[in-house]
């Protein structure tokens, strides 16, 4: 089950929606260029080599750190040596920090990162749960009461203390106003009342038992629960109040928002409450929109006018080949592995047949996808969740071994002959009709998800199934996705952030609506499996780490593998680029101490760890 975590937190795919507006997803996600280097089809024609090879001098060798660093003057209103510059998306809002209205607070602007603070952080890179605004949480025995203890030192950036009163105010506001973004949802469904016996304690009494209620208050993906200061928000209209400048508890405050430069300037709060644990070195942090032309953006990185981002994989490769000395590339797996969702509604023909799901599974060449199709090398995914340390406990080797994921077209053909044998005319027939499969994807024709689906489609056609693939633009795809008007959708699976039951709950039969009706994001593949429903209902009230739950989860995983409503393909690796000209100490592949994504709340700790390099900026 998932609490209404999406609206207040900017889920990575929501930010991606923002980014997609500019088709700049490439720039921040690390490369749209896919074209599996010549291995996907006939001979390459050879001769000449690629542009980055040419820069390297000889193929294969690259000059390490020999390129002289030409630092350009950065267009910022603060001293360069004291400023961290992050290049982000196109900002359009500069005077509103109210995330309860559409396009209220600007996303990925720094506000969600080091101005807002969260009660707990789950460091997905290490698996560590870090208490922050709170010191701990506790359930009562039957999971009907959840108690939070707040750090007594916590303070707002205007000096007032942060107490459980603020928490109660925020929860009451959100659960009573269904017309607010982030309002209603699980907060309304499960909260009976919030009590504050003392300024450091808040007790939520629930309407029914829910051992997962705490998920919504912990920052896992992008952000977490945003506590608003009662003394600022009380009496204001939550639909109109702008909260400008924003009052939160974080180590930085708003210095200025410059609309004509598309820039936010944040300065350090000298009165920060948790200096003992977090005292960042940058006096200022600037979040600025990336230049829309890739040349301009790459040059900005090359000239160290930006510290984080603003470059894509192709240009980073070129820089590495030239021996650029200040580039650090760090990989991080996105919470959502790439996956194929298969429609289970009987009206969709052969795709609804569970054995067909395994046919398709055998046609997926995960090693090729992970090596040649995805811009960086990534491992295959056997489970429908990311391979974080915190997710290791859900892996079940026993069950997984019973259902190996291999690339085996001959086995696929065998299975296919069972379900849909070739008819007299040479075409495969399923239940009297020709077997056809319609694949859709929301990414463009050069996107990895498209190419991976196309490879599967080509295999299907080879086996005699009439398969088509279409790339549809965001809203068009979403329309078909919600209405179930597809056979396969090549995208990603994001349901599991805490435990697998979140996925199973989404696939319950009572959430399956007929094809043609809007599913509103629930059970888009219309799976109707009574066994899974049973298990999911039982798991809903259990602590997922208990032994009881473990057994049920194993059974559920088996059923999942039998049905395969969603087939995970590869882990999603996005490289992040850091420039070490002015700041060092970034998380690296060898030392991934924290999530390196600059639009996640966790990035605050990265900023807390970086050190100035000592370089002086040009005048």
């Amino acid at each position, binding site marked *: 089950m998932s609490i209404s975590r999406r609206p207040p937190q900017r889920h990575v795919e929501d930010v991606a929606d923002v980014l997609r507006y500019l088709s700049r997803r490439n720039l921040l996600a690390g490369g749209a260029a896919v074209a599996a280097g*010549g291995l996907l089809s006939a001979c390459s024609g050879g*001769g000449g*080599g*690629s542009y980055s090879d040419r820069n390297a001098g000889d193929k294969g060798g690259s000059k390490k750190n020999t390129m002289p660093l030409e630092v350009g003057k950065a267009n910022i209103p603060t001293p360069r040596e004291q400023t961290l510059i992050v290049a982000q998306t196109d900002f359009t809002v500069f005077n509103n920090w109210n995330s309860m209205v559409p396009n209220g607070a600007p996303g990925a602007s720094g506000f969600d990162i080091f101005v807002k603070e969260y009660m707990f952080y789950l460091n997905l890179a290490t698996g560590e749960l870090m208490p922050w605004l709170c010191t701990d949480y506790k359930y009562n025995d039957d999971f009907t009461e959840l108690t939070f203890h707040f750090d007594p030192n916590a303070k707002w950036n205007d000096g007032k203390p942060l107490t459980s009163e603020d928490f109660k105010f925020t929860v009451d506001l959100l659960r009573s106003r269904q017309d607010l973004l982030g309002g209603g949802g699980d907060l309304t469904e499960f909260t009976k009342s919030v009590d504050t016996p003392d300024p450091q304690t808040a007790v939520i009494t629930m309407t029914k038992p829910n051992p997962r209620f705490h998920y919504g208050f912990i920052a896992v993906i992008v952000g977490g629960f945003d506590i608003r200061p009662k003394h600022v928000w009380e009496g204001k209209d939550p639909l109109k109040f702008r909260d400008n400048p924003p009052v939160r508890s974080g180590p930085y405050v708003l210095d200025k928002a410059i609309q004509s430069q598309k820039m936010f300037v944040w300065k350090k709060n000298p009165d920060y409450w948790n200096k003992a644990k977090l005292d960042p070195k940058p006096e200022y942090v600037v979040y600025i929109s990336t230049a829309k032309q*890739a040349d301009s953006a790459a040059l900005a990185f090359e000239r160290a006018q930006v510290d984080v981002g603003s470059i894509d994989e192709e240009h980073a490769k070129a820089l590495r080949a030239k021996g650029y000395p200040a580039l650090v590339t760090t990989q991080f797996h996105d919470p959502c592995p790439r996956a194929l969702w298969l429609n289970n509604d009987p009206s969709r023909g052969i795709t609804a047949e569970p054995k067909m799901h395994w046919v398709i599974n055998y046609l997926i060449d995960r090693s090729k996808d992970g090596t040649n199709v995805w811009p960086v090398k990534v491992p295959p995914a056997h489970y429908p969740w990311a391979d974080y340390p915190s997710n290791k406990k859900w892996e079940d080797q026993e069950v997984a071994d019973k259902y190996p994921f291999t690339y085996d077209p001959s086995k696929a053909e065998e299975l296919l002959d069972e379900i849909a044998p070739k008819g007299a005319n040479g075409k495969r027939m399923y239940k009297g009709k020709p077997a056809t499969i319609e694949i859709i994807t929301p990414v463009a024709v*050069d996107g990895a998800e498209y190419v991976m689906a196309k490879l599967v489609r080509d295999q299907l056609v080879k086996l005699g199934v009439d398969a088509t693939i279409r790339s549809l633009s965001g809203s068009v795809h979403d329309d078909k996705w919600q209405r179930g008007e597809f056979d396969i959708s090549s995208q990603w699976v994001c349901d599991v952030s805490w435990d697998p039951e979140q996925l199973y709950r989404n696939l319950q039969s009572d959430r399956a609506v007929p094809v043609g009706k809007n599913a509103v994001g629930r059970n888009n593949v219309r799976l109707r499996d009574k066994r899974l429903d049973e298990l999911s209902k039982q798991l809903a009230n259990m602590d997922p780490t208990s032994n009881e739950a473990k057994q049920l989860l194993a059974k559920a995983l088996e059923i999942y593998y039998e049905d395969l409503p969603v087939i995970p393909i590869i882990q999603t690796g996005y490289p992040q680029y850091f420039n070490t000209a002015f700041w060092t100490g970034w998380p690296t592949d060898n030392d991934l101490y924290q999530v390196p994504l600059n639009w996640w709340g966790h990035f605050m700790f990265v900023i807390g760890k970086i050190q100035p390099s000592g370089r002086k900026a040009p005048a």
Partner: protein
Amino acid sequence: MMTSTATIGRVLKAPVAVVRSSPKLAGGLIVLALLVLTALSSPLVSRAIGHGADPVAVAAYERWLVPSPAHPLGTDQLGRDVLSMIIGSMSTSLQIGAIAGVISTAIGVVVAFLAGYLGGWIDAVLSTFTGILLVIPTFPLLIALSAYAKEVTLFQVGLMLSIFSWPFAAKIIRSQVLSLRTRPYVELAKVSKAGAMEVIVTELLPNLAPFIGVGFASAALGAIFGLVGLEVIGLGPSGVIDLGHIIYSAISTGALTLGAWPMFVVPIALLTLLFAALNMVNIGLEEVYNPRLRSER
């Protein structure tokens, strides 16, 4: 009653003389012809480079290859051969321009005739309407139209553009219709019991032909202008790859800083040539009908 061959001969005699008399016009037409020929050679080029395979399929070759004998202009971010892509898309650009030009000219001729011949309040309304479309900045409207025209065919793109480029043709033709309407030979033709259609075809059209030509060139120019403008900022209609799209790819993938300048420079040069050619045709035709404008002593 004239025989049809004689009529055709008469109709054709004028244009040929016109072309011969203006070096600018001739020059423009020659360049256009060259561009069309290059575009038509696209299948040959594809065969020569692809050796049977399709050189512009996604991932046909390695991406970002430098220019070499096998790939005279290198490959792009998806591993497509740039030269065949450019020549193929030039054909697309020319076709779109032609379609938009033809439709615009057709609409323009109809509007111009209705307005010029019939006069009165019809003329007032149509002229005001044409005037509005010419004066106001129509680019936002074009952007909006194309933003919702995804997955369109070439013909639909041409149709879409002609919605905004027909006023160019209409204005030019109408002014000429107005002046021709009162010419003596039209009156004479009327007196000689020739029907309205015959008057139009035998008397007006030959004299209008150059202006229809100018109208066509202006409309085609305006249409391609608008289309490339849309594509360069990434708001062009998808489903159709033409020169503007290649330029946009070059900008958005940062081809220049990667060193892949052919992908950027060649489409711009070709489009510049196309625009220059269309312009020369326009100006050449205007000089023919205004001899004082010619650059001779």
